[in-house]
C-alpha cells in the first residue's frame, strides 16, 4: 500500500513541478480556451443574441470553455508518459520501489491538479463574461472538474501506454480532442442538432461534464430551459451527470493501470 501511495504522490509531485517551472507552458495552455471564448463568443454574439433561459452565447460558452480546458489538459497529461519514455526518465520511475498502479494514479492526480489550477485561473474571467460567482459555486465546481479530469487523464494515460512515440500520441490526441470538443455541447446545445450529431454527442462522456459545469455556473434552470442534456427525453441532473462521468473515469483509470503495467 505504501508503494502505491508513494508512487502516486512522487509522480504527481514531479509532473506539477515540471508544470510550474515551465512558465511558457502555463501561459500557452490558457491561450487556447481564451481564444475560443473571444473568437467564437465575439463572432456569434450578435448573430445569436439571447438564448433560452436568458443567457447569451458568451455566458453559454464560458462553462463549455472551462470544460474544454479540462479536457485538453487532462488528455494531454498522458504526453508525459510518452515523453518520459523517450527521454529515458520513465525507467528511473519504473525501477523505483513503487507500484505501477501508483504511477498511473500519480499521472492522473498530476494532470487533475494542473487542470484544476487552470480552471481557477479561468474563473477569474467570470465577471468579465457576466457569470456571477460565489464561494458555493466554486466549491461545487471543484468535484465536478476533478471527476471530469480524472476520467480524461485516465483516457490520456491509456492511449499513452500504447503510443509508440510523442508524435503518434499527439496525432491520436488531436484526432480525439476535436470531435470530443465539438460534439460536447461547448458551442451549441446538443439537443437541437442533426440526429447523427446528437447521437455522437450523447455517447461522448465529455458532453455530461460540460453540462455539469454549465449547471453549476449558470444554475440548474438552464437545463429546464432546454439548454441541458436529455437522454431519451429525460433531463439529466447534475449529480447523475457527475456520477456517470465518475463511473466512466474509474473504468478508464483501471484500464490505464492495466495497460501501463502490462509489460512488467
Amino acid at each position, binding site marked *: 500500500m505504501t508503494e502505491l501511495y508513494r508512487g502516486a504522490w512522487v509522480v504527481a509531485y514531479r509532473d506539477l*513541478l515540471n508544470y510550474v517551472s515551465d512558465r511558457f507552458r502555463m501561459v500557452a495552455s490558457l491561450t487556447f480556451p481564451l481564444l475560443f471564448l473571444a473568437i467564437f463568443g465575439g463572432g456569434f454574439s450578435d448573430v445569436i443574441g439571447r438564448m433560452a433561459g436568458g443567457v447569451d452565447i458568451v455566458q453559454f460558452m464560458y462553462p463549455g470553455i472551462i470544460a474544454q480546458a479540462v479536457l485538453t489538459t487532462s488528455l494531454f497529461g498522458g504526453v508525459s508518459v510518452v515523453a518520459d519514455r523517450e527521454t529515458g526518465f520513465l525507467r528511473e520511475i519504473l525501477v523505483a520501489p513503487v507500484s505501477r498502479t501508483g504511477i498511473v494514479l500519480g499521472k492522473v492526480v498530476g494532470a487533475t491538479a494542473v487542470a484544476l489550477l487552470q480552471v481557477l485561473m479561468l474563473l477569474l474571467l467570470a465577471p468579465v463574461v457576466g457569470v456571477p460567482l460565489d464561494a458555493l459555486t466554486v466549491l461545487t465546481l471543484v468535484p465536478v472538474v476533478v471527476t471530469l479530469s480524472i476520467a480524461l487523464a485516465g483516457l490520456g494515460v491509456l492511449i499513452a501506454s500504447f503510443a509508440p512515440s510523442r508524435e503518434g500520441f499527439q496525432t491520436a490526441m488531436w484526432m480525439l480532442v476535436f470531435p470530443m470538443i465539438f460534439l460536447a455541447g461547448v458551442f451549441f446545445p446538443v439537443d437541437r442538432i442533426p440526429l447523427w450529431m446528437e447521437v455522437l454527442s450523447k455517447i461522448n462522456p465529455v458532453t455530461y461534464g460540460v453540462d455539469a459545469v454549465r449547471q453549476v455556473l449558470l444554475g440548474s434552470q438552464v437545463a429546464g430551459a432546454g439548454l441541458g442534456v436529455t437522454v431519451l427525453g429525460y433531463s439529466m441532473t447534475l449529480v447523475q451527470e457527475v456520477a456517470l462521468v465518475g463511473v466512466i473515469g474509474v473504468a478508464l483509470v483501471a484500464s490505464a493501470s492495466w495497460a501501463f503495467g502490462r509489460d512488467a
Partner: protein
Amino acid sequence: MSIHTSDYTVELTSDKHATSEPARPAIIDVRALSRRFGPVEAVHDVTFRVGEGEVFGFLGPNGAGKTTTIHMLCTILRPTGGQATVGGFDVVDQRGDVRRSIGLVFQQTTLDDALTAEQNLRFHAYAYGVPADVRERRIDELLNLVELAERRGDRVRVFSGGMKRRLEIARGLLHRPRVLFLDEPTLGLDPQTRRRIWEYLAQLREREGLTVFMTTHYMDEAEQCDRIAVIDQGSIVALDTPVALKSAIGGDLITIATGDATAAASEIRERYRLSPIVTDGAVSFQVAEGGTFLPEFVRTFTQPLEAIGLRHPTLDDVFLTLTGRQIRDDAGNGSQSGSKGDRHD
C-alpha cells in the same frame, strides 16, 4: 606494425559454468539464468556469484547479453529460465526488496532534464522513501562527492554527458544501496571523465563497502575489476580475475620484422623451439617471459632484424582466444569490425 594474437594457445576452460568463487559471501547469486526473446536466446544458462564488496565486471561485445542480464538482476526484465537473488532477495518474487537494495546507472541517461540536479536527486529520495532527516544531508554529501555541488541548482539540460553520468551515479547511491549496477557507465565519455568516474567508484567502495556490478566493453575498465566474466553470445565463456585470465592464455607475444619472414620463422622454430606464425610479412611467437628472452634473442638471432615488438597479453587477447573474435568497438569511433555477431539487446 600490427600484431596478431590468434596464435595464443587455448588453455582456459571454455566450460559455460566456469566459476571462480568470490572471496567473500555472495551478495548476487545467479543460477542458470536465461532470457529468450522469441526465437533468440539473448542470455543462455548463466551462472555466477558476486561477493560482498567486490567490483565485478561483465565483459563482452555489444549484443553479448550484458544489458539483458543486468536488466534481469534489476527486476525490470523477467528471466525465462533459472533463478537469481540480489542481496538475498529473489529478482522475480521480491522485486520491491531487490529494488531497495540496488542502485542503477543505465546505459542511456534517465534524468529529467527539465529539472535541476537537486530536484532530480530529491525525486529519487522521495521515490525510494529516504527518510526526511537524512535526505538533505545525503544529497549534499553525494553532490560533493561527484563535484556537482556548485551546479546543484542548474537544470540538467545544460549539463555535459560526463556531468549527467556523475549525477546519475550520485542518484544511484542516494538510498544507500548494497549493490550498484552500472551498465556501460563510461560509454561515450572522454578519457579524463572516465578516469574520474573510476576514482569515485574506488572511493565509494573503500568508504561504504559497496558492491559494484558493471558491464563494459572497454578492456582498461575490465582490468580494474576484481573479477570478470567474459560473456559472448549469451553465455559466460570464462570467469576469473583479470590476472588469472591473462596468464591462462600464455606468455608474452613477440613480433619481429625481417627481410625474409619464411627464413626467420624457420630459424625461430629450429633454434628456439618455438611455434612462430607469419602474417603480413611479420613473424610472431609466444614466450613465457618476453623481458628476459629478448636480449638473448637479439644477441643470437642470425637474420637482420628490422623491428621488434613485445606485448603482454591483454583481456582483448583473452576474448580473442576464447571466442576467435575481437571485442573492440574502439571508444566512440564506432568501428565495429570483427564483431560480426552484433546484436543489440
